[in-house]
């Protein structure tokens, strides 16, 4: 079946793909394959995203979490039992009918991977996309005159005009382009026809030799390290490479599938909504299936304006490949040509910006483009020495940074949670999303704050990252209180004074105390070395010093020091100058 194991975030939510967004979450969901309940997949949360339906088991999320790509779903049905509270109780279900798998693929795979006749870890490629075009985008032809690798024309055909080389302007011979078309297509067909060819493809893939320069690249690379040629075993063409999961064969879902009575074709998957919430899920699913966001990944972005704007921002190959490219009638060369080109480019950028800000919908769909534009402006600005106005520069780079915050990754909104389930699910999801937010390596918020952040600060930072759909302080608090229950990598801690702080789970009091005392020891070592006078009491510190040293906020520093004092390892010295902290001479460690 098309179920795949998925990666989870540290907070045990499904790891979303770059362009994927979460649409809906529902707990108390069970999974059926065909008519059969799947063991271990009976109590979990269902996550609906723009690309997938994910199931995360409540008890052992790391083991029993799978996803189904929406592109493999042909149609779906909502089933609501008539007597929901009657004698024979049955939960409402949503049935997802899968696209029939490609038979040739199936035959070749089942012997090598699984007992199940229906097991196919590789979903069929999306039909509605235009594979030829997307493949053409990544192809190149090499100019025989100047050896520049030009992008393959997207509209190549027998009648289409042949574009000239981008650098030297000489049209290539048609046979060169034909050779490229021929060299690529057979390679595509080879994939998965017989066992032998698979074996060979596997060997070939394992080495990942470049078709142009024959350099053996690492498997993970998409382009050749040497010459930049697109490698044939492109991860998008073959998802099994894109998601290396060596233990796939042992993964629970497929194994169960193997035990389904032979001859019975499983063509549908059911989600059983024991806690309700099937209707909003159905609605969102309908929306997702209509929108088909996954197709956008392959498409070269919004066509209306990409033509020019992309020229500046995106991969030049891609933009050249778009239909506008060659205007062979008016070819102007030299400085004037460059000027003309620049002018056109500016016009297009202008259009892109004007179009994007027309309404929010458009902005979202063009977000990528606008971010790229903003970044580009920022670098241009930074490079330009004549622009002494640092304020403007800062503002621009800041807005670029704001744009790249990508709030959607961390957002859980109330309307993603069904109203039928209690508020606690919302809080649980919120807690998970906050934990993800804090654990995100690119931001390293906790690290910047010295491993502890006050609830107030977190509220501000988190809401800024969300940008829209802000959360209330009370929601944050309720969510934070669930950290422990959900076993997330962060925990909520209340200091003596009542100050609430969020900390990494592994940051225990002992560790903090140890580091503080070690720091004081280190300071007094320095002190005795520097000065002749022997100060047997060592060195004292203010809370401010500790805050600077460990990156805490002052409030956290005071609380942490008091915590260490509570343990008896520090003593305080209150004077009119403030409270100084000393290592305790009275402390006897157990």
């Amino acid at each position, binding site marked *: 079946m098309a179920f795949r194991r998925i990666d989870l975030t540290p907070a045990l939510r499904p790891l979303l793909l770059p362009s994927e967004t979460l649409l809906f979450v529902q707990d108390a969901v069970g999974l059926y394959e065909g008519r059969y309940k799947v063991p271990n997949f009976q109590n979990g949360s269902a996550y609906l995203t723009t690309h997938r339906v994910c199931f995360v088991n409540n008890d052992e999320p790391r083991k029993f979490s799978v996803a189904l790509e929406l592109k493999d779903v042909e149609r779906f049905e909502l089933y609501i039992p008539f007597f929901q509270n009657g004698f024979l109780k049955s939960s409402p279900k949503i049935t997802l009918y899968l696209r029939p798998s490609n038979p040739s693929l199936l035959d070749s795979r089942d012997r090598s991977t699984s007992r199940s006749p229906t097991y196919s870890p590789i979903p069929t490629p999306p039909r509605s996309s235009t594979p030829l075009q997307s493949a053409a985008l990544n192809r190149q032809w090499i100019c025989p005159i100047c050896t520049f690798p030009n992008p393959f024309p997207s509209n190549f055909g027998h009648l289409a005009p042949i574009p000239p080389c981008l650098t030297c302007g000489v049209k290539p011979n048609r046979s060169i382009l034909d050779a490229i078309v021929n060299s690529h297509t057979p390679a595509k067909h080879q994939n998965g026809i017989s066992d032998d060819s698979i074996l060979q493809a596997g060997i070939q893939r394992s080495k990942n030799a470049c078709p142009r320069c024959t350099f053996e690249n690492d498997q993970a690379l998409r382009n050749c390290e040497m010459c930049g040629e697109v490698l044939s075993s492109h991860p998008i063409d073959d998802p099994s490479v894109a998601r290396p999961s060596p233990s796939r064969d042992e993964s629970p879902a497929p194994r169960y599938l193997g035990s389904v009575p032979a001859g019975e074709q499983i063509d549908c998957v059911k989600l059983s909504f024991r806690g309700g919430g099937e209707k909003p899920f159905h609605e969102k699913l309908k929306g997702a299936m209509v929108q088909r966001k996954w197709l956008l990944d392959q498409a070269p972005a919004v066509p209306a304006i990409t033509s020019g704007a992309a020229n500046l921002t995106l991969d030049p190959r891609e933009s050249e490949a778009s239909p506008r490219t060659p205007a062979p009638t008016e070819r102007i060369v030299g400085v004037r040509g460059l000027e003309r080109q620049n002018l056109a480019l500016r016009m297009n950028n202008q259009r892109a910006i004007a179009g994007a800000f027309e309404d929010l919908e458009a902005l979202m769909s063009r977000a990528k483009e606008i971010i790229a534009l903003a970044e580009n402006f920022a670098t241009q600005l930074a490079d330009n020495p004549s622009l002494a106005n640092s304020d403007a520069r800062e503002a621009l780079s800041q807005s670029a940074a704001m744009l790249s915050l990508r709030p959607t990754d961390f957002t859980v909104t109330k309307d993603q949670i069904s109203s039928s389930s209690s508020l606690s699910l919302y809080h649980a999801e919120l807690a998970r999303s906050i934990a993800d937010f804090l654990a995100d390596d690119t931001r390293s918020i906790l690290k910047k704050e010295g491993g502890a952040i006050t609830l107030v600060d977190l509220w501000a930072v988190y809401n800024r990252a969300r940008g829209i759909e802000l959360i209330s302080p009370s929601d944050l608090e309720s969510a934070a209180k669930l950290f422990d229950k959900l076993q997330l990598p962060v925990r909520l801690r209340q200091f003596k004074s009542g100050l609430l702080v969020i900390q990494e789970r592994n940051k225990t009091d002992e560790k903090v105390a140890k580091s503080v005392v070690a720091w004081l020891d280190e300071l007094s070592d320095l002190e005795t070395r520097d000065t002749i006078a022997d100060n047997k009491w060592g060195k004292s510190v203010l809370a401010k010093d500790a805050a600077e040293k460990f990156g805490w906020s002052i409030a956290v520093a005071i609380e942490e020091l008091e915590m260490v*004092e509570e343990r008896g390892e520090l*003593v*305080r010295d209150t004077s009119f100058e403030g409270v100084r902290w*000393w290592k305790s*001479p009275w402390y006897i460690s157990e």
Partner: protein
Amino acid sequence: MANLKDKSALPAYYPEFYTFPPFYTRQPNAASWSSQLSQWRSFILAYCRAHKLWRLNLADTMETDLFYNKSINRKLPLPTIREVVDDLVKSSNAEWLSSEKSIAYIYWRTPEDFASQIYSWIDETGQKGTVLTLLELTEGDNTTQQEWYGMDQTMLVKCLNVLVKKGQAQVFSVGDDKGVKVW
């Protein structure tokens, strides 16, 4: 005493913590506080003994070297002094003069200790059975070498009362003066 600023010149009965700034702050931590408290107790007793101090006027002594280390500019605050003295009272090393807790007698020996000392001195000097005035005991020429020399009259009476209870002495008034007879 004259040059306290020089740390090395501190008399031996000064505790090492005398120069430790946190020593002058009441530690909130119970374990730290109990160590600190016992240091302060022994320091007060040792100090009073060295200086032959019998009664401590807290407001006055606050400014003395006992509670005020000028070299590090730290002094023990009054409430904390009270707390320490309260603890001394508990172990009968001190006694409040009044309920205001501003003046306290400091017994750097317990009344029992003093009583037995006085008894043995009277015994050694063969004065059993004779009547001695209290002034003779505390201010007399014969007792200058004794530990209780210069003791406060009220305190002396308390100590002698220990003997009275044991039936070894009798205290009576001779006009304004008080006398004691030990046998």
